């Protein structure tokens, strides 16, 4: 599997986990939402570690405008990280399962939207601007097992 496909698959896993978190939270099932959140956090860390160790250095080594792109990708990662923290904090704040928690989640739905938006934009940016050119540049690279996340 090429980098593009491996990364797309990883992002699909992350977005799928986020939908699980969101689904449970808007149903007022906060315990389940927190459990999915822990999985999402772990999956993100795993994926991030690979990209920080392998992808970003490659971009920086290639030089030119790709150095700037590496800055933006790193910035995106920090924004995703903060958005994850914001969702975790919210899930801690809203109390336990039930209608009150559900209402509190709905009142703060923007916190989830922000995470969803940054994950989606980041995914598209990486696929189009990072992994497509890297696949062209390094036809021999295959990072399947490192980039792939286990499907939940």
């Amino acid at each position: 599997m090429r980098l593009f496909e491996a990364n797309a698959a990883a992002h699909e896993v992350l977005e799928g986990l986020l939908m699980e978190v969101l689904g449970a939270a808007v149903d007022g099932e906060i315990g389940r939402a927190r459990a999915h959140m822990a999985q999402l956090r772990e999956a993100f860390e795993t994926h991030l570690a690979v990209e920080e160790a392998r992808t970003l250095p490659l971009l920086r080594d290639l030089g030119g405008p790709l150095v700037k792109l590496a800055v933006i990708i790193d910035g995106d990662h920090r924004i995703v990280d903060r958005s994850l923290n914001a969702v975790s904090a919210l899930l801690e704040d809203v109390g336990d399962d039930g209608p009150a928690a559900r209402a509190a989640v709905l009142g703060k739905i923007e916190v989830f939207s922000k995470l969803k938006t940054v994950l989606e934009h980041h995914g598209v940016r990486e696929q189009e601007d990072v992994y497509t050119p890297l696949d062209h540049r390094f036809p021999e690279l295959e990072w399947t097992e490192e980039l792939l996340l286990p499907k939940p």
Partner: protein
Amino acid sequence: MSDYEVAIVGAGVVGLACAARLAARWPGRVLVLERHEGICREASSRNSEVVHAGIYYPTGSLKALTCVRGRRMLVKRCRDLGIPLLACGKVIVASAADQLPALEELLAQGRANDVEGLEVIDAERLRQLEPGTRGVGALWSPASAVVDSHQLAASLEAEAAHHGADLVFGAEVVGVEPADGGYGLTVTQGEETTTVSAARVVNAAGLGADTLSTMVGIDIDGAGYRQYACKGTWWSIAPRHNHRLSRLVYPVGRAEDPGLGIHGCFDAAGGMRLGPDFVFVEAGDDGVDLSVPEAARAKFLAAGQRLFPWLEAEDLSPDMAGLRAKLVPAPKQWRDFVVAEESARGLPGWVTLVGIESPGLTAAMALAEVVGQRLSSS
């Protein structure tokens, strides 16, 4: 010591451009405070997304300088980072012979402002360049473009985050006091009120910038900082016409037009819009009404049909509205952008941005550069 070297109030495109630039200078020491839950919820997401060439503004004005420089910075950023940018160019169309001299004036103004590639063209060349419009001649500006402003702003936010800037959302600045040789900002976040201090403050609060100036003790009338909200609305053109235009199409501003004149623009996906109009508005108890009044349909149809003979009444549907932060209370008066470091008012390290109307999106990165210079000399 202050909590931060710089606090930026406002996460519109200008505040974000300042954050990206200043966070590189002070890594981990820049704070952005935004009252909404995300970036660009006001003027920066309610505009035409046109990358202006820099034609209209008096030579040497901040509008002219930052528009031309900001555009070049923006285009480079889009190319480097893969941000969608339609290099479509624009035609400013004369619909009658008595408007032709105005094209020559615009040409001279644009050239004096160092705008590339400007040309006055005749009706035949206009038909070739943009068959979707008609006119007796036009000014062709190949440097004008359309940008995906959301992706641009998101890239600025990411750059600021890379340099360790803290962006706090849902955080409204409600008070300012001198503190620790800098400024203490009182911030409400939901039910909570906190104070945060910064050695320097950049007031990039858009339409809220005059209110923030008042909080720090600036007499906004004496300073000329009072802002007036001027609403612009757009009507979308039926999807059956998508991609019918390949250039932005503007009219030559007529004496009776209060702004640049209602024009035809499109987004990166080809969806077409007419607008914006130009109406000064007052805020009511719930803020300014951002609905699109049905009563304006006839005005838009007439303006649209002057440029696009194929346009029919049923092609138009209400789209959205945005608010310009103007420093003048009526049409046909001109003020430049204001970017001022306020040491002379006893407020060292406080930078005010007011009057950041169009071409503020185009100019954003150059405005941030000016803010950086003002802070260096403070």
